């Protein structure tokens, strides 16, 4: 009979004096934190940098972690959320940098033209998502990337299930509006840096 693997809370309690315990927590959560940060920042380089900072900060403050009835991952997401918000704030003080790192798109074997079109549309969608306020971006990433239920999303975001549902409907409405704006900008050719297919990221609008 094999023993049950220790849950996150037990590992978190041990991590203050046992680095290997934190290593197990790291292995369990690094991919989801990375995914979350990737979609919030738009490129792998910053995602790696911020992910590293999340876990370094988490490890440095692991002794302060207390069980408040929410998953350990919620605490990590909170750290990630704050670091990403600081990152957006710092970037808004500097010139815009074009997004040259696109999410993987298309399926191997697809026609290159179809792949390019799918990639462009995916870029459009991701750009629209990144123009949403922080909490709405977080909601979409948790629901669609992490496949969390409304209750689980609420635990991570510190909201009730009803509040999450309400926010979700408002988020879809906002997303639709952002897509309309982006399409209008591209048609008029006013969107900066979009002529060659790259998407401008964070012109101070993200991190609202």
């Amino acid at each position, binding site marked *: 009979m094999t023993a049950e693997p220790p849950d996150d809370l037990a590992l978190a309690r041990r991590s203050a004096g046992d*680095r*290997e315990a*934190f*290593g197990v927590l*790291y*292995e369990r959560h*690094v*991919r*989801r934190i*990375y*995914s979350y940060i*990737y*979609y919030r920042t738009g490129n*792998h380089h910053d*995602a*790696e940098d911020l*992910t*590293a900072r999340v*876990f*370094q900060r988490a*490890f*440095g*403050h*692991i002794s302060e972690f207390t069980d408040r009835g929410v998953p350990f991952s919620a605490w990590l997401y909170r750290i990630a959320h704050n670091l990403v918000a600081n990152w957006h704030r710092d970037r808004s003080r500097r010139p815009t940098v074009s997004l040259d790192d696109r*999410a*993987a798109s298309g399926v191997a074997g697809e026609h290159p033209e179809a792949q390019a*079109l*799918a990639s462009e*549309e*995916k870029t*459009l*969608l*991701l750009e629209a*998502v990144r123009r949403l306020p922080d909490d709405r971006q977080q909601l*979409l*990433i948790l629901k*669609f*990337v*992490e496949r969390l239920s409304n209750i689980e999303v609420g635990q991570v975001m510190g909201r009730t299930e009803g509040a999450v549902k309400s926010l979700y*409907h408002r988020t*879809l409405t906002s*997303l*639709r509006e952002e*897509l*309309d704006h982006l*399409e209008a900008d591209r048609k008029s050719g006013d969107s900066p840096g979009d002529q060659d297919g790259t998407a401008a990221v964070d012109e101070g609008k993200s991190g609202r």
Partner: protein
Amino acid sequence: MLSVVRSSARSGKQLEAWLEEALVPVEPSSRFTRSLRARLVSYRGDRFASIWMVLAVLGTSILLLVAISSFALRLAMAILGGVELLSRQKRQRDRIRLRPT
């Protein structure tokens, strides 16, 4: 599927389907996850430094202080030596000048 992006009539269901297709987990590189884990396992965070680290820092500081003091002392002695040399030369010149012929 993604051509629904450009449709002006995006229903909630269509948007959700599109989001499901576009927002997929992104894997970090294995090189990154391995190196970060290695750093974390040896990282000591904000914990108070060990006694050995304190002793090492203290010892290095003392040695540095001694080295700097020694250099300053040598510099001062060199300057004083130069001043003494110049004053001795001046005294010799004065003695020669005042020697009765």
